[in-house]
C-alpha cells in the first residue's frame, strides 16, 4: 500500500500540488492574519477540480508550511504570522535585534522541519494506536489541560509576576466576551452583534504583538535609531545552518517538543498555538538557564517551532483514523476529505482504492516538511535582510499588512478596529512592563477551561464531581502536574535555602555555577 502511495506521489499533478502548496503556504504563513486555517479554508474549493491525492496533498502541504512561515516574521519583526508562532516572537526578535536573525530563522527552519517530519512518521506508522489517545480525553481532562496551560503564565510574566498575572486576568476577561456556551445569552456584548462570536484571536494578537511593536519602532525612530538592530550589532552575522555543537544542545528539546506537539495535535481542538506554548514552557522549566528565555534563547525557538509543526501531523492522526479533527485546521480539512470520497476511518487505510491515496498524502506531507526546510534555508539569507531595512519603511508596511490581515480573517472592518484597539492596549501594557503574551495565552485557554468545566458539571450531575474525578487516572495525573507546576518554584526555593543554611559550601558552589 505504501509502495502504491509512492507511485501515486510521482504523478505530475501531485508533485505540482506539493511544491505549490509548500511555497504558497510559507508565504501565506509569513503574512500576519493570513493563517493556516484561512489558507486551507480558501483552498478547499480549489481542490474540487483536482484528484483526491493532489487536492489533499495541497492542503496538508499548505498546513505545515504556513505554520512554519509564521515563524519568519515572528523572528524578524515581532509579528507572528500565525498564532502558533506567538511563542517564538519574543526570543526570535531579541536575537534579530542582536544581529543574529539569520541563526534564529535557521533554528526555526530546522526545528520546524524536524518536528513536522517526525509527526509525519508518527502518522505513517503508529496512527491507529495513537488515535485512541484522542478518545481518552473528555471534558474534565480538557479543563485540567486548560488550567495547566494557564500556569504557563508564570513563565511568560517576565520580570514582574504580579503584572504577568494581571495580564493573564485581562486575557481571561476578554475570553468571556461572546455567547454563553450553556444558555447562549450574550456576555459583555453591549448589543454589538459582531462580539457574539467573541473577540477574534488573530486580530487581537496582531494588535498586541505587531502594532505595539510598530509604535515602539516609531519611538525609536524619533530617538534617532534607524533599524531594528541594536547599535552594537550593525552587521548581520552567522549562517542559517547550525553547526553540530550548536545543534547538539537543542536535540533533547527537539525530541521532547516533537512528542508534546504530536500529543497536543492528537487532542481535538488543541492546535499549534497551545502546542508551542506548552512546549516552550516545558523547555524553560527543564533548562539550566531559564533566564535566557524571552531574551533570545535558541532553545526557546526550538521548543516552540518544533512543537507547532509536530502538531500538524498529530492533528491529522485522529482526523484520518476517526474522523475527529485534532485541530481547527484539521476540522476544515474534514470537509475537503469527504468531498474527495475519502471518508475517515480505519478502512481508509486498508481499502484498495483509498489506501494508496492516503499513503500518498502522508508521504507527501513528510516530503512537504523536508521541502519547506530546504526552501526556508535557501531563502532565509535574503529574508533576514529585512532587519536592516529602515524602520521608516518597515513600519508603514507592517501597519498595512496588519490591517489587511485583520480584515481578511472574517472580511470584517470590525476586526480591524479590534486590532487597532489591541495595538494601543499592547503598547501601553509593554510600556509599563506588562507582558502581552499572557493575554494571548489566556484568551486561547480561558474559553477552553470554562467550556469544559461547565460540560463536566453536566456530566457529573448524577455521579458527583469528586467520584468522577477519582475514576479517571489521566485527570488525577493532570491535577498532580498542575500542583507541581504551581508549587515547584516555591519548593525549590525552600530546599535551596535549607541546603544553603546547612552547608555554607553549597553557596559557594552555586555562585560558581552562575
Amino acid at each position: 500500500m505504501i509502495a502504491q502511495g509512492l507511485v501515486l506521489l510521482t504523478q505530475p499533478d501531485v508533485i505540482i500540488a506539493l511544491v505549490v502548496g509548500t511555497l504558497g503556504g510559507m508565504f501565506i504563513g509569513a503574512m500576519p492574519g493570513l493563517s493556516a486555517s484561512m489558507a486551507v479554508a480558501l483552498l478547499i474549493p480549489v481542490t474540487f477540480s483536482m484528484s483526491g491525492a493532489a487536492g489533499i496533498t495541497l492542503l496538508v502541504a499548505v498546513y505545515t508550511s504556513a505554520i512554519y512561515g509564521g515563524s519568519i516574521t515572528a523572528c524578524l519583526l515581532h509579528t507572528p504570522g500565525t498564532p502558533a508562532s506567538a511563542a517564538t516572537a519574543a526570543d526570535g526578535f531579541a536575537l534579530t535585534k542582536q544581529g543574529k536573525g539569520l541563526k534564529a530563522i535557521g533554528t526555526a527552519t530546522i526545528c520546524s522541519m524536524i518536528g513536522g517530519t517526525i509527526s509525519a512518521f508518527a502518522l505513517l506508522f503508529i496512527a491507529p494506536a495513537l488515535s485512541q489517545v484522542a478518545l481518552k480525553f473528555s471534558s474534565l481532562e480538557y479543563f485540567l489541560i486548560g488550567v495547566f496551560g494557564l500556569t504557563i503564565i508564570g513563565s511568560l510574566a517576565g520580570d514582574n509576576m504580579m503584572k504577568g498575572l494581571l495580564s493573564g486576568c485581562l486575557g481571561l476577561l476578554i475570553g468571556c466576551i461572546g455567547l454563553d456556551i450553556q444558555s447562549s445569552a450574550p456576555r459583555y456584548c453591549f448589543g454589538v452583534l459582531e462580539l457574539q462570536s467573541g473577540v477574534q484571536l488573530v486580530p487581537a494578537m496582531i494588535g498586541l504583538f505587531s502594532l505595539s511593536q510598530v509604535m515602539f519602532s516609531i519611538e525609536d525612530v524619533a530617538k534617532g535609531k534607524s533599524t531594528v538592530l541594536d547599535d552594537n550589532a550593525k552587521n548581520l552575522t552567522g549562517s542559517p545552518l547550525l553547526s553540530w555543537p550548536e545543534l547538539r544542545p537543542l536535540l533533547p528539546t527537539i525530541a521532547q517538543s516533537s512528542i508534546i506537539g504530536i500529543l497536543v495535535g492528537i487532542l481535538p481542538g488543541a492546535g499549534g498555538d497551545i502546542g508551542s506554548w506548552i512546549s516552550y514552557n516545558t523547555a524553560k522549566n527543564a533548562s539550566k538557564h531559564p533566564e535566557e528565555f524571552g531574551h533570545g534563547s535558541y532553545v526557546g525557538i526550538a521548543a516552540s517551532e518544533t512543537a507547532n509543526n509536530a502538531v500538524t501531523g498529530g492533528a491529522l492522526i485522529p482526523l484520518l483514523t476517526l474522523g475527529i479533527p485534532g485541530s481547527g485546521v484539521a476540522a476544515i480539512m474534514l470537509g475537503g476529505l469527504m468531498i474527495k470520497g475519502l471518508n475517515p476511518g480505519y478502512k481508509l487505510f486498508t481499502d484498495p482504492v483509498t489506501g494508496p491515496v492516503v499513503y500518498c498524502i502522508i508521504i507527501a506531507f513528510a516530503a512537504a516538511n523536508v521541502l519547506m526546510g530546504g526552501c526556508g534555508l535557501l531563502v532565509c539569507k535574503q529574508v533576514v535582510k529585512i532587519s536592516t531595512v529602515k524602520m521608516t519603511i518597515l513600519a508603514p508596511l507592517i501597519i498595512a499588512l496588519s490591517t489587511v490581515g485583520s480584515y481578511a480573517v472574517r472580511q470584517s472592518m470590525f476586526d480591524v478596529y479590534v486590532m487597532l484597539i489591541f495595538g494601543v492596549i499592547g503598547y501601553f501594557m509593554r510600556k509599563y512592563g506588562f507582558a502581552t503574551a499572557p493575554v494571548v495565552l489566556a484568551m486561547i485557554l480561558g474559553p477552553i477551561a470554562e467550556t469544559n468545566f461547565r460540560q463536566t458539571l453536566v456530566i457529573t450531575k448524577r455521579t458527583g464531581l469528586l467520584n468522577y474525578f477519582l475514576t479517571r487516572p489521566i485527570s488525577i495525573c493532570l491535577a498532580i502536574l498542575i500542583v507541581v507546576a504551581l508549587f515547584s518554584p516555591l519548593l525549590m526555593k525552600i530546599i535551596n535555602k535549607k541546603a544553603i543554611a546547612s552547608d555554607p559550601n553549597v553557596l559557594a558552589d552555586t555562585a560558581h555555577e552562575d
Partner: protein
Amino acid sequence: MKKVISLVAALALALSLVSCGSTPSPSSSGAGSTPPNSSAPQPTGSSYPNGKNIVLYCGYSAGGSSDTLCRLTAAKVGEILGTTCTVENVTGASGWVLWNQMMESTTPDGYSFFLINSPNVTTGKYDVDNPMKYDQNDFELICNHVTDSNCMAIRVDDSRFSDWDSFVAYWKQEGTLITSASGLNITSDDATADYLMSNDLGVEVDIIASGGSSDNITFLLNETTDYVMGNVSEMVSAHNEGQYKILCVFAEERDPNLPDVPTYEELTGHKIIGCSSRGYAMLKDIPDDIKQVLSDAIKQAVQDPELIQQLMDIYTTTDYRDGQDYTDYLNEITDTARAAFGL
C-alpha cells in the same frame, strides 16, 4: 540596499494584491467563476445581470459544509446566468451577522442573495436568552436546497443496550440519559429533537453544550454521553465504518443514505420530524423582473442533476421546495421547535 527595498516593496505589492483577491472584490475563491460565455437563456426585456458579478453570501466560515454547498451552487448559478457568481463569507452569531447586514445595509439590486438555514433563521426570533430581530418571513424566499434529517446513534460496544428496544428500556429504567448538542435551546435542531424524543418517551435528558457534531461524536465514543443526536450527512460515514450504530432517523420517510435504518415513527408509531435545512433567499425590495431571473437561475441550479450527484457523494440529500411549499415548510419548523420548548 536599494535592491532590498525594491524587493520588499514588490513583496508588499504582491501581498496587497493577494489580500485584495480574498477581500473587497468578492472573489474569495475561483470556484464560482466561470467565463461569461455560457449559452444560457438570457433574460428578456432586461439586460440583467449584464455580465456583473453576483455574490452568494454565506453566514458560515469558509471550508464548512454550508460554505461547500454555497460554492457548488454558486458555480452553477454563474454558468446559468452567463456571468460570475462568487461566495462571500460573513460570519458570526450563528449566521445572524450576515442576515442583519443583509436586512440593514445591503442594496436590493439583485446582485446578491444569501443562504438561509433552519433552525437558525427560523428560531432566532424565539430564543429567549438572545432574541434576534428577523425570521424567514422578512426575506423573499427563493427555494430550499437540502434537508438533513436528524438521527440518533449509540456505541456498537455498549454493554447496556444494543438496539432500539433495549435502549428505550434502559432509558426508562434510568430515568435520565446524557447526550450533547451544539446548543441547549430552540436554536439547535439536535437539542430540539432530543427534547421531542424524551418528552414522547416520558423520560429525561441532560444535554452537554458542545462545539458541534465532531465534538458530539467524540463524546459518544469516549463514553461521556449515552447516545448522540446528529444530522445524517455528518453521521453516515462513521456508521458505515462501524464506529457507532444509528438507531433511527427523525423524518417522514427513511433516508436514502440509510435505507436500513427505520424512522422514529416506524419504531414508536409517533411522528417526530427533526432536521436542519439549507435554502436561499434574497431581499424583498429587489425589482420584480430581476427577482424572477435570479430566482429562476437558482432554482435551475439546485435541480441540476450534476449538482444533485455531487451532493449525494457527500451524503447530502437535495430537497427542492419553492413558493408557498417552502414558506410552509419553514414555518412548520418554527412551530415544531416552539412547541418542543413551550414558547
